[in-house]
């Protein structure tokens, strides 16, 4: 299949590109929209001898990948936009070192976030670290760029970065795949070339890096990843990058302005191909920028224009800074699309709006007719439902207006109805645990609300661990609840250090309680779904005790469990409708209304609860809480009297 054209998701294309670029090691930390890159590379492990693994966080991933580069092999690191913040310390120092093997950093941004707590534009880091950055527009280009960057990184001896966004990472397109090289290089670290960032070497290395970047700029001026489409002499130029290129092409085509507007596609986002852009600015009067999230190119081109003012005529710029390119929440906020470009052009060219309205609105209208509206909810059987029920009950019983601080993971949904609105503070990975450490220090100022920090297992290893040490070290009075579902569930069931070897043979589990007990922290491990009263009491007791306490709520992710158990005969919960008395019960539809489990329904015809056998995961939580004991766990359909 080496020369076939295949349908690939953008993320799969990036992985394929790395493979064709001779990558030996791929790692990263899962995070939407980047996760599928590494996921898609696991099959290459055996077939091509590529080392593929998940790291506990992004900086560790980049550091580990750098070791391959330092030893002469090529490596790729993947992450979402938040991840680049985590790895930035290493990134902004390792950029000063002379690499040996190619090192590719892939960052996938989540504009108008589907699953992020910010909509950061990662491209700024290319400028901060002074590393080459490419931005693909299609899955084909994503593959080509990944491959090219690995080679280029090795040639220039500097880390190279590829930026994707959700629509590209998750969109699919035809990709011409190429051969996978068989590289037989024995890795070796050259003792004569130490890579040390000591202060007296920094200025020397920094100077060398900037020199490199000038050479990169020359290469980028000639790069095939940049192209121009349109009339040879245009007075109106669109400078676009990434998916913006496609939106611009479609908008121009829709308005029939192909003869008037030229589109300069920039694939090399940093350093700017200055010569190329100057050439196009020379005969242009007006420029519109189309790019995702921040006005990154827009700002850089304006700087370039200011520097070249004497050679260029008067140019008027349109974009996010001037407000023409804007979505519903204003310029620079949310995802862009063809409609936004259309509206910008209609405004600039004073074209009356016409046609059948925006694609977005049409799609929404159609969806509202075809789809049932659903709330954000924990999955059926999710152990987090019981964990947050226990947290709520314990905090209410405690009565001191205590609250939960949390972070990023499925359990972040507990800021909403499905988690009984328990999480009151949520920012980034591990932030709740650090926040809690600080909240406890407020007691000397009269603060008397107890605070519980929650973190998932994967998040705990990622960024919670330093906060735990900090709390212990600084004698905080803090209760940490680790929601250990043994897997990185939110991003698609990647292994975490809490995963058992039953899930993944190639990893060694590092249980949370081994860590916390090793630190002398009182640690309780229990299954929140097994005995809810015990779970409530454990949290309550934790709130009454001084010092740092850890509770590990351990239960395998129900959706993962269900996937794995699909072939086995499944248990499920079943409502004995002879026992359920519906509205007469006095529970006020506790199971279907309060628990909010997607598997529990209220049968309006019979006026009794009903559990959907296709979705129930048999967690047993409703079985424990039904006051009539009308819900039973059954093995098979036979036992339900069918």
């Amino acid at each position, binding site marked *: 299949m080496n020369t076939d054209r295949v349908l690939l998701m953008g993320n799969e294309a990036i992985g394929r590109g790395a493979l064709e670029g001779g990558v030996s090691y791929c790692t990263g930390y899962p995070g939407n929209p980047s996760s599928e890159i590494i996921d898609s590379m696991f099959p290459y492990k055996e077939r091509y001898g590529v080392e593929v693994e998940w790291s506990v966080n992004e900086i560790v991933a980049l550091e580990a990948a750098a070791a391959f580069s330092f030893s002469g092999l090529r490596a790729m690191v993947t992450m979402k936009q938040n991840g680049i913040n985590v790895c930035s310390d290493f990134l902004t120092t390792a950029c000063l070192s002379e690499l040996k093997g190619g090192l590719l950093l892939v960052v996938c941004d989540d504009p108008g976030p589907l699953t992020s707590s910010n909509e950061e534009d990662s491209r700024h880091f290319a400028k901060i670290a002074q590393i080459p950055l490419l931005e693909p527009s299609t899955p084909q280009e994503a593959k080509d760029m990944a491959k090219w960057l690995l080679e280029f990184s090795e040639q220039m001896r500097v880390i190279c970065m590829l930026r994707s966004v959700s629509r590209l990472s998750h969109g699919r397109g035809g990709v011409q795949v190429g051969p996978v090289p068989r590289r037989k290089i024995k890795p070796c670290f050259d003792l004569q070339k130490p890579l040390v960032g000591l202060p007296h070497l920094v200025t020397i290395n920094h100077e060398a890096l900037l020199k490199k970047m000038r050479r990169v700029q020359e290469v980028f001026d000639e790069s095939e990843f940049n192209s121009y489409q349109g009339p040879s002499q245009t007075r109106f130029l669109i400078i676009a990058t990434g998916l913006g290129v496609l939106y611009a092409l479609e908008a121009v085509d829709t308005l029939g302005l192909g003869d008037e507007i030229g589109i300069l596609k920039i694939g090399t986002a940093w350093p700017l191909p200055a010569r190329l852009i100057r050439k196009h600015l020379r005969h242009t009067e007006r420029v519109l920028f189309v790019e995702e999230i921040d006005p990154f190119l827009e700002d850089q081109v304006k700087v370039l224009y200011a520097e070249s003012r004497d050679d260029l005529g008067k140019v008027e710029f349109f974009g996010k800074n001037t407000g023409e390119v804007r979505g519903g929440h204003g310029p620079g906020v949310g995802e862009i699309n063809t409609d936004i470009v259309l509206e910008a052009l209609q405004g600039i060219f004073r074209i009356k709006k016409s046609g059948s309205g925006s694609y977005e609105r049409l799609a929404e209208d159609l969806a509202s007719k075809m789809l049932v509206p659903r709330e954000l909810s924990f999955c059926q059987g999710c152990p987090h439902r019981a964990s947050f*029920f226990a947290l*709520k*009950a*314990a905090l*209410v*019983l*405690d*009565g001191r207006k205590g609250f939960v601080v949390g972070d990023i993971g499925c359990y972040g949904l507990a800021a909403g109805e499905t988690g*009984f609105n328990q999480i009151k503070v949520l920012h980034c990975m591990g932030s709740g645990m650090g926040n809690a450490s600080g909240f406890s220090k407020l007691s000397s100022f009269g603060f008397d609300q107890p605070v519980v920090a929650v973190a998932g297992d994967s998040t705990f290893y990622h960024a919670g661990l330093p906060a735990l040490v900090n709390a212990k070290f600084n004698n905080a009075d803090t209760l940490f609840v680790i929601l250990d579902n043994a897997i990185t569930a939110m991003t698609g069931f990647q292994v975490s250090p809490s995963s058992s070897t039953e899930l993944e043979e190639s990893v060694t589990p590092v249980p949370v309680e081994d860590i916390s007990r090793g630190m002398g922290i009182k640690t309780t491990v229990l299954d929140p779904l097994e005995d809810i009263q015990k779970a*409530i*009491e454990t949290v*309550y007791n934790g709130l*009454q005790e001084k010092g740092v306490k850890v509770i590990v709520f351990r239960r395998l992710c129900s959706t993962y469990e269900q996937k794995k158990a699909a072939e086995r005969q499944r248990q499920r919960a079943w409502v004995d409708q002879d026992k359920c*008395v519906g509205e*007469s*019960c*006095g*529970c*006020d539809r*506790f199971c279907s209304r*309060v628990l909010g489990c997607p598997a529990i329904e209220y049968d309006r015809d019979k006026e009794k609860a009903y559990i959907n056998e296709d979705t129930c995961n048999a967690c047993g939580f409703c079985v424990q*809480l*039904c*006051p009539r004991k009308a819900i039973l766990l059954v093995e098979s359909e036979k036992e339900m009297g069918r």
Partner: protein
Amino acid sequence: MAGIIQNSEQQGGLKELRKEVLDTSACTGCGSCVAICPHVVSIEDRIAAISDCRISSGKCYLYCPRTLPFPEAECSLGGDVGYRGPVGAYQEYCMAKSAFPRDEFSFQYGGVVSTLLVKALQEGLINCAVVTRAAANFPLTVTALNREEILEAAGSKFALAPTNKEANRSADGPGNRLGVVALPCQCTGLRKRQLLEEKEQAEGGRVTVVLGLFCTWALSQKGWRSLLHNHWGKESINRVDIPPPPAGVLEIASAREKVAVPLKEIREFVRPGCDVCLDMTAENADISVGMVEGLKEYNTVIIRTERGSSLFKMAVKTGCLEKTRLDDERWNHLLEASLNKKKRAVGNAENRGEALPYYERIIKLRERIERRE
């Protein structure tokens, strides 16, 4: 029990229970609203509603000793519900002591409660008993199924256990006939439950016999924990007692040592709901039992109901209990003490100045209490 909720339109649900009791200083922590409804959770004697229930009339509200009584309760109940004389309604009073060997059991005084329960079980009047025993120096309510388990629970516990939670749980079992040892507030809750069960001819088990304990106040378990933390090690407690005035102390004793904690140090650990309680003698029990001043081997016994009377007579007839007359001086002293508790409660309710239905109701009883009708 569908009918109760539908027929008691003027009553309240969880929303009202929270507003009038649970989230206020009036809650007794009796446990009447626990284990009947998934919206209510409890740990030790702390009880809270954790989700919103839209039902306008529910068991949680109807069973509570501190809510507006439904008509049947209003007519027949004393204690916190209504004024029926200084110690409530009764058939007779006396002193009694158990004929069981005292050395074998840690009776607080005369051992009358344990003995009556054992008797009720032996005679088949009840088939299980809800009693509160000590577990690691803390009260733990359990359902005892035999004589040994009942006797294991002998002796007073000064920290409150939400007994009615366990009673609710065990009463769920079809065919169960429960004997419950309860504090005055709990007796009121259980009596309300019984009245509703009779009215509705509910399925499931029944609370059959309620043995009430005299009570001046109870400590919260959190308070008890602080008290033990300040005054006591990990040693197992054999007996807790308040010797008669002027001692002014609470005595905690193990086999080896005894500690006297001044009562004024204990004040802050008393449940706030106790300060507004009218009921010292468990006026809504079948039989109420307390101490006799100066006679450690005896109990004061107030027999209140037909069922209580026949149980007591049977225990005496079979030689399990020895019955003696209670002298007038002691009886009058008891009436005085009981009335004083009522007066204090009314005064405290006024001083709190909260517009709670319970407070408003007991303040209206002031005149009758003072007239000592």
